[in-house]
């Protein structure tokens, strides 16, 4: 019934074509969206605009990489948006306070990593569901941001700080390059390291993974820590791009990251998914947002379209599951 959900079975040529089609639905969707917006807007298919889309997608994208790791484990991290805000505020606050840029950045990354470590430890030690642990953290870490900033936006004094990411390869910004490098690295990490392969085992069947000798608690702790680090990295990059740290920065971005990951086809139940899917989901999200803005649609259209696309992705996922079950 449910044992082979990890790798949908390929049964016959017709089944194979169908499976490939359904498995790569996010790339087909992305392609269709790009074609559609290229036709209806003269501004979409320009190097400038596409480079911009890549940069804009990187912030949610880096959050989504960490979320993918955690979600393959069958867990969830709702606190990434708050962690991003904490790193953003610390980087700018410490730099304004006299710390050099590298020191401020390192401290911000460390703080985010510590939050991830805290979440991971609580999940591993207490056996609480990560939804509860990170829901608490989502509220509490936002509190830390407000305590640190006093509820006010911080503006960076040193404008050279905002020029750090102004490095381009052709038109592609450093921020986008970091995002792609991380996608490549973590895809390699998932498929070619012991920890990565164990991630699927843990997400698929915790008890079996434990019996097979995987130290599940420690494994999850590592993934939550990575997730916290990546959220902090996204926060630091955001602080450089904006030059300000709003205490409400990244609010509800955890939801967008989850949407991007699910859109890509990674399953919330765990045991299934990869970084290519997440990359597809992140880019699809960014292209739809960008395209709708180029068309001058009011912003509610974007919210409604994203909701519908998400439901469509869920529907496709169900069809795929039913299709594979029939094939068995």
């Amino acid at each position, binding site marked *: 019934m449910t044992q082979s959900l990890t790798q949908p079975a390929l049964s016959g040529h017709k089944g194979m074509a169908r499976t490939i089609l359904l498995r790569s639905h996010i790339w087909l969707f992305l392609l269709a969206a790009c074609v559609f917006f290229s036709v209806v807007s003269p501004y979409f298919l320009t190097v400038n605009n596409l480079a911009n889309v890549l940069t804009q997608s990187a912030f949610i994208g880096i959050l989504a990489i960490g979320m993918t790791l955690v979600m393959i484990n069958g867990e*969830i991290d709702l606190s990434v948006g708050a962690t991003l805000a904490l790193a953003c505020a610390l980087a700018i606050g410490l730099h304004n306070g006299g710390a050099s840029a590298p020191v401020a950045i390192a401290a911000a990354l460390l703080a985010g990593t510590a939050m991830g470590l805290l979440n991971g430890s*609580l999940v*591993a*030690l*207490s*056996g*609480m*569901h990560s*939804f*509860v*642990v990170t*829901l*608490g*953290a*989502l*509220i*509490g*870490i*936002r*509190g*830390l941001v*407000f*305590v640190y900033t*006093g*509820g006010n936006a911080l503006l960076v004094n040193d404008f050279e700080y905002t020029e750090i990411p102004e490095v381009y390869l052709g038109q592609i910004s450093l921020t986008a390059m970091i995002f792609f490098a991380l996608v490549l690295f973590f895809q390699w990490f998932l498929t070619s390291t012991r920890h990565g392969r164990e991630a699927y085992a843990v997400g698929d069947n915790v008890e079996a993974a434990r019996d097979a000798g995987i130290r599940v*608690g420690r494994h999850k702790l590592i993934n939550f820590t990575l997730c916290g680090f990546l959220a902090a990295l996204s926060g630091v990059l955001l602080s450089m791009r904006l030059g300000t740290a709003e205490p409400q920065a990244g609010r509800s971005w955890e*939801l967008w990251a*989850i*949407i991007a990951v*699910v859109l890509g086809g990674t399953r*919330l*139940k765990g045991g299934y998914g990869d970084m290519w899917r997440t990359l597809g989901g992140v880019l699809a999200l960014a292209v739809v947002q960008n395209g709708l803005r180029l068309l001058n649609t*009011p*912003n*509610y*259209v*974007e*919210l*409604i*379209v*994203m*909701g*519908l696309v*998400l*439901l469509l992705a*869920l*529907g496709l996922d*169900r069809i795929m599951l039913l299709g594979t079950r029939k094939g068995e």
Partner: protein
Amino acid sequence: MIATLTTGDFIRRNGLIIAFAAILAIVALSAPTFLTVGNLLGVLRQIAIVGTIAVGVTFVVISGRLDLSVGSGLTFLSVLVVSQHNQIGPAGALAVTLCCGLLIGACNGFLVAYLRFDSLIATLAMLSLLQGVTIWYSGGANVNVADSTTWFSFFGRGSVLGIPAPVLLLVLGAAVAGFVLMRTRFGRAVFAVGGNETASIFSGIAAPRIVFATYLISGLATACAAIIMGSRVMGAQSTIGQGYELTVLAGIILGGTSLLGGYGSIWRTIVGVAMLGFIENGLILMGFPYYVQWLVTWAIVIMAVWIDLAAKRGRLLA
């Protein structure tokens, strides 16, 4: 056989009451103005909106699902009730709002119960959709009640025998909900579906129908909360309910209702929501900035759930 009451059992049975009493005592000792009738009624008035939604969402959570759409739902329905009040008067506005609340619940319920979508993602999609619908409907502008002399103002601002109307509405709603959950066949079915869905189906319960109904209740509760909100503020804007889904869930979790389903109660939810309200009020009376309550909420939620879990399994660590 004589049952021996271990420490774990004792904490599990009475932990919530002990924690609630402790928090009340700490707050009352640190802030002398806390224990005044005016302040207490003010806090109760404040928690009525979160409490009303939480009562509805408790059904969904006990059946083993989540509803993240209530914050957006509250926003949309508040905007709706205020604009409709200006157009068709209070009675029509109430009817339209309650119907739309049920409709939102029906959408969620259809997606989760019949299409069997994951409840977290499906209600997340509804969160986004409803946000969009709100801005489409209101144009993003604030709406205000044009004629504030109608009886519509009763729900948020009125009082009966000195007790604020929102509190009365919450108590009434909670009593009805508690009765339905604990004393009816439907209520027992909700527990059965949340406890073990497969077993519930084999014992003849139409699980999808039960889940669908829990979302209807959640939608209806959100509509009631929106009526209180609109009446209290005498207006609405497109961010008014933002983040309420999280406060609601925090209150439910604090009360000890399990997110895995099958366990929980209405009074636990009310105590959980009240605890959050009293902590917030106490910290502000003590002179802390409003955001300190978030740190305290974090610590208390983690501690409460961990202690509850530890008492159940008899060990602190997993």
